[in-house]
């Protein structure tokens, strides 16, 4: 075989001739040359005869082979005789491989129309919502049953895990919860004093702070912070175990995930959230008292007196009685989302954010229902 003159510089020349158009490729041509070459190949018009001359080509890769193949097909379809000449054995083999592997489009089943897609989407969302509620009820039931079983058979109960989770969800959350409540107290005192001063009723700022923090804001904002912190960590921890089939392994070993994973977590939240709420109440009152003193000159002693005069124990009770309910909502939603994680990392991320949104929403919804309930019974 005579060795063709090869240069490494890639080039493509189109030479229109009287009887045939010659397309000459030369050098080592790869996918990086394709952006230059493709428009030239596309511009080759149908002619009686087109010769693609590869005798000067040193090497082509599959993308160039594909482009040659595609051009050949396009021209043949337009009634042109196409010849590929001068291909070295390796190049001919690449061309052959690519031609053999030419992807065949498969007809996709026709998708639904826009109206159908809309209705289908709404339907799927409703069914998904219902499925989520059923799954929530399932995990809630699992938690209650396993908790009851733990009472009957205390050996099933995981005390070490409970203590560990109490530390993670309770003790470690104290700084952020206390700081948040302190700042809320400061803001309330500041804003309240500005408004009440207009009526000369500055001293009622104590009642404003006490009622709003003890009854609503202390526990609600604590629950929201815990929902963000803890529901996500429950979902991430259980979800990554689900991804690696650890939960399936537990089942085959006769270990119940409800006992090991759900009960300690949810119970830890039930025990810790009221305490965190109490800390938030105290920090909020402290922040409010401090600001009242600075801004309005209400001394701490006077603040305490006003506080004792109001029916604030009742408000604090109304606030804290909501905490276990919020705790169960947050914990069960976090565990349920973790158990719903599929096999991919992407589903873990999606379920984690879903858990946080659902937990916060559930807490606020429950709080609204508590408000109506307490208002009706006149507490």
């Amino acid at each position, binding site marked *: 075989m005579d060795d063709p003159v090869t240069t490494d510089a890639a080039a493509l020349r189109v030479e229109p001739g009287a009887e045939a158009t010659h397309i000459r490729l030369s050098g080592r041509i790869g996918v990086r040359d394709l*952006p230059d070459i*493709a428009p030239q190949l596309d511009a080759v018009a149908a002619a009686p005869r087109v010769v693609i001359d590869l005798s000067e080509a040193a090497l082509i890769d599959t993308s160039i082979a594909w482009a040659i193949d595609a051009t050949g097909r396009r021209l043949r379809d337009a009634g042109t005789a196409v010849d590929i000449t001068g291909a070295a054995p390796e190049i001919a083999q690449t061309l052959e491989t690519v031609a053999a592997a030419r992807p065949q489009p498969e007809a996709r089943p026709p998708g639904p129309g826009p109206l159908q897609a809309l209705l289908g989407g709404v339907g799927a969302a409703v069914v998904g919502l219902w499925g989520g509620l059923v799954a929530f009820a399932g995990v809630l039931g699992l938690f209650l049953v396993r908790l009851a079983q733990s009472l009957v058979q205390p050996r099933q109960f995981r005390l070490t895990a409970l203590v560990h989770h109490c530390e993670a969800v309770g003790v470690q959350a104290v700084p952020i919860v206390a700081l948040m409540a302190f700042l809320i107290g400061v803001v309330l005192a500041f804003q309240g004093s500005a408004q009440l001063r207009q009526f000369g009723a500055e001293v009622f700022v104590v009642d404003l702070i006490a009622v709003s923090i003890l009854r609503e804001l202390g526990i609600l904002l604590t629950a929201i912070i815990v929902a963000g912190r803890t529901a996500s960590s429950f979902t991430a921890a259980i979800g990554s175990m689900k991804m690696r089939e650890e939960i399936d392994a537990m089942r085959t070993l006769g270990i119940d995930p409800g006992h090991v994973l759900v009960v300690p977590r949810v119970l830890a939240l039930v025990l810790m959230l009221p305490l965190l709420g109490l800390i938030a109440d105290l920090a909020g009152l402290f922040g409010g008292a401090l600001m009242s003193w600075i801004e309005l000159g209400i001394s701490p002693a006077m603040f305490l007196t006003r506080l004792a005069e109001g029916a604030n124990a009742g408000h604090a009770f109304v606030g804290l009685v909501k905490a276990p309910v919020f705790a169960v909502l947050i914990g069960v939603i976090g565990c349920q989302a973790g158990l719903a994680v599929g096999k991919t990392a992407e589903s873990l991320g999606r379920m984690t954010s879903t858990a946080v949104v659902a937990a916060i929403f559930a807490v606020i919804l429950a709080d609204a229902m508590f408000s109506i309930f307490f208002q009706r019974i006149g507490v």
Partner: protein
Amino acid sequence: MTDAVIRVRGLRNQFGPNIVHDGLDLDVMRGEVLGVVGGSGTGKSVLLRTIAGLQRPAAGSVEMLGVDMQTAGEAALKAVSQRTGVLFQDGALFSSLTVRENVEVPLRAIHGLATETRQALARLKISLAGLPWSAGDKFPAELSGGMRKRAGLARALALDPEIVFLDEPTAGLDPIGAAAFDDLIGSLSRTLGLTVFLVTHDLDTLYAICDRVAVLAERRVLVTGPVAAMGAVDHPWVQSYFRGRRARAARDAIAAQAPGG
């Protein structure tokens, strides 16, 4: 055409006090299929990761396609990475992208490539890897393990690399799927002139497609050579590996296939 495209000299890898490789030398020739074998924990995958530039060795040099991987600048390393492809054990496909979009990722590095061309090239690579058209529109999680490996191979081949690294390409596949994957790698390396560096435990793969075998033991490459010559190597591990029951079965299967096929 027997120039070395990968040249490893005096390589040492260690994790804390645990020395994995010490004074390891290895050459990989252009166009060959090299199978790297060794017992568990002999650092086969570590060697692959070191050569592919995913891990810095403690000592020694790795030269790939004429570039010294330790001293080369960022631009040179990037150029080398575009001339090599890696197939990770489970494909390592990006889970948020479809298979076609996965294969398009390396193609996006080429400026001026039209979107339709890029998609058509991705379709071509998916087809070259032996996957049907419909697989291109699926997400990695919707594919079986064998299909994910093929999709990973399609992505590794996207830029027509000169060297492909395969980390246990047939692990976790059923024997039929594994044999089909072996055939695919063999035919691609023959027809596209690929140099293949593959780490494997699979004796069938070694007998079916490897031109040469490198045995890792005692923290270095103990011996290299054609798989047929391995039975004669006087080393306990090599003896038990290549003269064991499984090796005999793989050898017999290839011998039975050769006259007919």
